[in-house]
């Protein structure tokens, strides 16, 4: 790798957007608090100073209209990057994703492209409660015509944001609040993390652990204890949940013959369910154990810290599942 620098995740996102805005005048940011306030958590700080209010647009609290505006603007030649704040708020704009942005190109017989990025934040682990802590990426992963990316560290945060802005399709960019201040080495030169490819964090032989978004941190925590137990883990960071990087997952499972999927969203109807179904359909003869999931239970996420801890998947739950599987 060429020259690198230390940057935390929120600045990695900020730099990615700023660099793309400098490169391409059709890129603009839009949403609640993104302009003058610099973002509800500071991710878009300074952009209004460099690019002006025309390209850093503060809006009323109107999630549906924000995403609708993005869709219409993208179909009209611009490249919007919107912030929707907490992912729960995106429920107010599911219409615009499901019926409009994801279908528009197909429905209109390829007359338009819809290059837009919408940022939404997951906030599990903060006691933010039932209306601010949900992981809803699975809804959007089930929509043809759009992409969903999930950075797990500053490197993927910057590279996936750049790839998302340059992509000609609607992209939902799911960023974890808990990692905003986590620092990492990222290249100084321009780079992207390709959409649709998983990243191998560690190679191993006994089991593939497939981590989704911020769960990568929990998976990393689990690695030393699993190694102590004599288990050789191949750790993949999924990076994209629509389209799922199935070929990368298949390659790894063919090698390790076991798969555990780790995600913060509910187990029921989650990404893991889809991956497990595809793996057993396509790699049944390779599997030495059932495909396992470590994910949230079928209930609601609480503000109450003890209940929230019980709800969220973590390193301990992953370790227990992997050990049980290999046993």
């Amino acid at each position, binding site marked *: 790798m060429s020259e690198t620098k230390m940057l935390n995740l929120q600045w990695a996102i900020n730099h990615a957007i700023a660099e793309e805005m400098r490169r391409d005048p059709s890129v603009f940011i839009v949403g609640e608090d993104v302009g003058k306030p610099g973002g509800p958590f500071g991710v878009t700080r300074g952009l209004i100073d460099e690019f002006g209010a025309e390209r850093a647009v503060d809006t009323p609290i109107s999630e549906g*209209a924000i995403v609708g505006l993005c869709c219409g603007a993208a179909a009209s030649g611009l490249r919007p990057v919107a912030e929707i704040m907490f992912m729960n708020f995106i429920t107010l704009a599911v219409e615009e994703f499901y019926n409009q942005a994801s279908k528009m190109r197909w429905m209109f017989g390829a007359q338009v492209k819809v290059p837009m990025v919408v940022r939404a934040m997951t906030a599990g682990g903060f006691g933010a409660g039932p209306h601010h802590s949900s992981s809803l990426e699975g809804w959007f992963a089930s929509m043809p015509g759009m992409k969903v990316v999930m950075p797990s560290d500053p490197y993927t945060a910057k590279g996936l944001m750049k790839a998302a802005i340059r992509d000609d399709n609607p992209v939902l960019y799911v960023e974890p609040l808990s990692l905003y201040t986590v620092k990492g080495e990222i290249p100084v030169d321009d780079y992207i993390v390709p959409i649709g490819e998983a990243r191998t964090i560690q190679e191993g032989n006994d089991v593939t652990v497939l981590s989704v978004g911020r769960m990568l941190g929990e998976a990393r925590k689990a690695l030393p204890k699993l190694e102590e137990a004599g288990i050789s883990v191949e750790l993949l960071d999924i990076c994209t949940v629509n389209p799922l990087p199935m070929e990368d997952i298949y390659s790894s499972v063919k090698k390790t013959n076991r798969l555990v999927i780790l995600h913060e969203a509910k187990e029921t109807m989650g990404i893991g369910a889809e991956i497990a179904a595809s793996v057993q359909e396509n790699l049944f003869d390779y599997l030495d154990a059932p495909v396992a999931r470590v994910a949230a239970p079928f209930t609601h996420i609480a503000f109450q810290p003890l209940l929230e801890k019980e709800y969220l998947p973590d390193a301990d739950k992953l370790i227990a599942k992997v050990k049980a599987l290999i046993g």
Partner: protein
Amino acid sequence: MKISKEVKIDLYNRMVRQRTFEDETTVNFASGDMPGFLHLSQGEDAVPAGTCAHLSDEDAIYTTHRGHGCIIAKGAEMNPMMAELFGRIDGCCKGRAGSMHFADVKTGCMGSNGIVGEGMRLALGTSFAQKYNKTKNVTLVYFGEGATGTGSFHESFNMAATLKLPLIFICNINLYAQMTPKSDHVSIENIADRAAAYGAPGVTIDGNDVEAVYDAMEIALKHTRSGKGPYMIECKTYRHHGHFEGDPCNYRPDGELEKWMKKDPIVLYEKKLKKEGVLSDKEIKKIKADTLKEVQDAVVFARASAMPDVSEMYKDILA
């Protein structure tokens, strides 16, 4: 305002084209050859004609599930449009969209929409792009009074006003939200009064008087092109057909349709143009005959076009 003879003939032509096109779809739908749902706008013809007569291809429109009239008035070609309604490969959306999801981007028709009220949110984006690119173009969004019950109406008007977007809201009051009469779902007489809530001008006009629509649009354009933000024109009109083709319309009071048929915008305008000496009976006859031939040729074109191969379903999902 003084309207030139050329514009008067243009307004008349647009209305006849809309009406003839839709009347022909009625026939082909009834025969079972046109798949899907069909929502028609006969009777509301003056609104698209009077508004679109001011626009170029660089101006954009968003319309509704009842959008054929707007799209014809905006200038879309009839052949690909009819082929689209028949679900054929030569349709301008390759036969995927049909009546309710139709778009013809090169003429600025950014889409009809199957979701009531949703065109308003999308129109924010196109008008935003027009402003962002420092053009003098505008976006029109058409909707019925039923759509003013959606959150999209409030969100979109408020956002257009706060961002000062070149967006003109055109409300067709056709007296029904699907099957529920206006008196049951709108709490005020004139929807245009709501524009004041956003600090924008709103006018209420006779939507069956095509020249009144044309004049109102001229004022709206002046306002919007000068950077003052959105404007609303409420056009009081009536839907001759039911909510959908096949709707028995048993919710209509006796005599209501007959009363409105006497105010048919095309009949009214013919009388006026004849009286003013703009068009003769013979010229009117010729316009109608030529238009009918164009529409019937479009039906022949559409019927001759191939059905899409099933593999089409998997194309163009992503760019």
